[in-house]
Each structure stands twice: as structure tokens, then as C-alpha cells.
């Protein structure tokens, strides 16, 4: 099979839906096999904003990848649990043979209070998943990538909130900045092994994480039931390009470039897919 990542295996966290699923499908379209991981459960602190992915969502990702005639090994696991992440990876490698691409994508989005009013639980959940979970994903996979001796590509999902301050989104913003520091350090440490490490920085992406009433209310605080139609122009006003948000496929195309050998000398870069949000 031909394709821009033909013959490669990609380990993707948060793969049940949203950007993670989109990445799995896009890479599979271009010839990759997939090791997928998702918590596939509600997280208590997130429930007030949006529901967690489900096991049915993860099964749908499996079905979509298999429909492309690619293989996928999917595991229900929490990125906060290092042993579970490691086991999911090893199970995938046992079946698919190797791992060449890592997409540390799993993340949660909490917001609504000024930083000094954020609860300790909210802070811990966001940092544990969005930062420590990314580190644990990398920690699980790096020894094997080094041992394989064939290089590799790690792509960490950051955000425009990894480049700019965002009021009332303190833990998320802190975590998304922090992964940039982790990326830069890993890029230096892993360069001699030809393992590349980069971040992607989307603006709002049309996924359940932002297309929900609670998020719309962040922009429309006086509306009891703000709608997507009401929110769209306000979202658009934060971007330079005249779009409210981007599609998961737009981020997947950037991830695909970084994952492929087309980017074999791209490391340490912050690849923004942000419609000009951070240029304003």
C-alpha cells in the first residue's frame, strides 16, 4: 500500500473521538496502522462542561480505521496511569511490530474561574492529564523508539493557549504551555536518535470539547442557552482568518505532515493551525 506514512505504526492517545479519531483515520488513509488509547469514560470534573468519550466512540474509531483496510489495536486506558499506558503500547507493538509515530493528543478543557479561584481538583485533573499524561505517553514509548534505531516522530497537541495567555482558563493554559517546554527538551535529548518532537497549536476545533453550551456561554455569559450560531461570529472575531473554528481534519493534515518523512528534518517546531489567532 502506498501513502505518505505507509508502513508506519502510530500510537495515538485520546483516539476515541474528536481530533484523536481524526488523526487515526487520516494516518490510516495514508497507510499507517494504529495503536489507539482512550479513557473512554467521564471525568468527574469535566462532566459539568462536556461528556467524556465512550467505549462506543472508541469502537467507532476502530471501525473507521478497519474500513480503510488498516490494522488498529485499541485499549481503554487512562494517560494518568503509566502502567496502563505502557501495557496498551506494548500490546499494540506486539501485534503491529513497531512504533514510529506518537500523537500525545489526549486532553481535557476546564475553564470558568480566575486562576486564584480554580479548585485544587480541577487544577490537578487538567495538569495530570494534559501535562503528566503527555509525559507518561512519551516515557512509555521513547525506550522502544530508541531501541528500534529507526528514528521517529512525536507530535504533542498543544493549543493557542500554549502560546498566549487565556483569561479564566488557567490550568489548561499552564498545561499547554508546559508541553512546549517538554517538547523542546525532548527534541534536544532525542535529536541524536533521529527522533523528532514537535507541537501542534490549534485554535478552536469543531469537536465536543468546544462545541457545547458551557463553552458557548464563556463567550455569551448573558445567554441561558447560547447556540452554536450565536457563538460562531464571536469565535470568528478571535481569529485573523474569517472562520470561527477549524475542522479536526485541518489539524490532522498538519499532524500527518509532521508524522511523515516529508518533515524528516523538522524538530522543535511549534506548528500553529490557528487561523491567525496568535498573530493578532
Amino acid at each position: 500500500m502506498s501513502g505518505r506514512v505507509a508502513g508506519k505504526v502510530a500510537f495515538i492517545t485520546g483516539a476515541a473521538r474528536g481530533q484523536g479519531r481524526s488523526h487515526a483515520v487520516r494516518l490510516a488513509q495514508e497507510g499507517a496502522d494504529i495503536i489507539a488509547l482512550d479513557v473512554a469514560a467521564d471525568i468527574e470534573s469535566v462532566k459539568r462542561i462536556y461528556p467524556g468519550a465512550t467505549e462506543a466512540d472508541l469502537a467507532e474509531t476502530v471501525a473507521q480505521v478497519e474500513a480503510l483496510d488498516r490494522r488498529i489495536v485499541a485499549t481503554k486506558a487512562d494517560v494518568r496511569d503509566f502502567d496502563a499506558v505502557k501495557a496498551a503500547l506494548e500490546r499494540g507493538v506486539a501485534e503491529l511490530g513497531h512504533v514510529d509515530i506518537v500523537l500525545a493528543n489526549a486532553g481535557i478543557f476546564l475553564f470558568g474561574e480566575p486562576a486564584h479561584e480554580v479548585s485544587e481538583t480541577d487544577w490537578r485533573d487538567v495538569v495530570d492529564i494534559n501535562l503528566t499524561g503527555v509525559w507518561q505517553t512519551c516515557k512509555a514509548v521513547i525506550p522502544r523508539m530508541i531501541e528500534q534505531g529507526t528514528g521517529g516522530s512525536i507530535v504533542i497537541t498543544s493549543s493557542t493557549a500554549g502560546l498566549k495567555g487565556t483569561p479564566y482558563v488557567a490550568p489548561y493554559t499552564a498545561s499547554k504551555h508546559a508541553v512546549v517546554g517538554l517538547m523542546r527538551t525532548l527534541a534536544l535529548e532525542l535529536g541524536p536518535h533521529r527522533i523528532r518532537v514537535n507541537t501542534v497549536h490549534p485554535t478552536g476545533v469543531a469537536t465536543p470539547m468546544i462545541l457545547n453550551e458551557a463553552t458557548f456561554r464563556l463567550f455569551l455569559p448573558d445567554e441561558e442557552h447560547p447556540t452554536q450560531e450565536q457563538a460562531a461570529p464571536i469565535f470568528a472575531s478571535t481569529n485573523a482568518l474569517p472562520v470561527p473554528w477549524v475542522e479536526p481534519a485541518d489539524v490532522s493534515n498538519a499532524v500527518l505532515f509532521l508524522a511523515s518523512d516529508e518533515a524528516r528534518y523538522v524538530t522543535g517546531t511549534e506548528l500553529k493551525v490557528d487561523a491567525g489567532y496568535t498573530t493578532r
Partner: protein
Amino acid sequence: MTGRVEGKVAFVTGAGRGQGRSHAIRLAEEGADIIAVDILEDYATVGYGMATTADLDETVRAVEALDRRIIATKADVRDFDALKGAVEAGVAELGRLDVVVANAGICTVQAWDEVTPEVWRDTLDTNLTGVWNSMVAGVPHLIAAGGGSIVATSSTAGIKGLPYLAPYVAAKHGVVGVCRSLANELARYSIRVNTVHPTGVDTPMASGIGGLEGLINSDPDIGPIFMNTLPVESLDPREISNAVLFLASDESRYVTGLEFTVDAGNTIR
């Protein structure tokens, strides 16, 4: 198979050889037609020769061998009227313009006290004003097409203060500022503006700029500034072309205001 920039027309400056030729060929491989310009004349201030008529002819041959069309013109990016004319002639023939690759540039190496007014002027006129002229010549056609992608060639020298390259560094930083400004200004037309920042690329320009090694050796602490993170000394032009292709294509339809490093980790050291 449909190409990744099928049906688009790209204007590439400095297309006679090196990165410019590589970009023209890579875009043509993926379905684009090309409007090419190159100065084809030497600078008194630059120690290596510019591309020749034969070089530009070779770019034309390579694009046409891919069954794509190309309109190539001898034009100096410092001469706005000549650029405007070249773009207009190309659009008249090829029908539209979707992509501007503002790539033409020169480079000289010298310590700060050996930068002559002529070197300063030629470098800034070509590498900064020339990029500006290329954009201004292209933008009306991009607006007419309903949107487009501008890619300007900056450098690691557009991010770091590389020693012994002050005029080049000034121009390559300047390009970033211009692109950020136009990214905001042109977003309403769905025109995206981004820069690419290569580390050393294996081209006649890079092999032509003598003297850097001696200057580095005169101050051993300077050397690491030029080192890459990945175990590679210089890149093939095609590596940069792959990034340009991504930025030119609709795969990056919402990417604007980006400084895209293709630098083997040079700027994170």
C-alpha cells in the same frame, strides 16, 4: 492521482536554481503551473555567481517534463515594475494566481566592520524589499482568485542572531515582521502568509558564501550557534520544498502567521 496543489498557479522568485527551482519542481509534481523569475545577473557585492540563463532554462525543462506549464522571466526582485510585469504576463497565460513563494535571496559573510554600505543595501534591497515587492506584485491576483497562500523564505537567521551575517540576519528578521503584518491585513481575503526558516541548505548560495569557517574558528564559542540538533549538517532543497508544498496546499487552509522552522532543531539549541 490528483496532486496536492492540482490546478493552482504558483509564482516563485529565485527559481533559476537552488531552493527556488526545487520549489517549482515540487509544486509542479503535485499539479501546479509555475510563474518563475530570476535575476540571472551577478552582484558586485556578492562573492559567488547568481543563476544563469541556462539554469533557468533547466528549471523550465524540469517543470515541463512533469507536463506542467511554466512562464519564466528574467527579472530582478528589486525592480517592482519588472516583477509586476512578469506576474501579469504569467497570469495572462496561466489564468490565475494562487501561491506566491518569495524565495529570492543573497548572502554574504563578513564581520560587522567589513559590512560596506553597498553590501548592506544590496542584501536589504534583495532579501527584504524584494520579498515585499514579490508579495505586492502577487496580492491583487490572489484577491482576484478569492484567496491564496504566500510563503516567504526566511531562515534560522530570521530567528537567531547568527554572527558575521548581520545584513542577512536583519533582512530575514524583517521578512518575519512583514509577513506577520500581512497575515493580519490579508486574512479577510482568505490569503494566508507564512515564513519558512531553513537551517543550512545544500545550494550554490550556501557553498558560495566562503569565509564563515575561518571566522567561526577565530572564536570557538561561536561554533555551536550554527549547529543542528539532528545529526545532519545541511539539508537537501527538497526538504524545504515539502514544507512549502504543505503551506501552499489546502491542507494548511487555516495556517497563517506561522514561522515554520525546517531547521533540524537549530533554533531550539
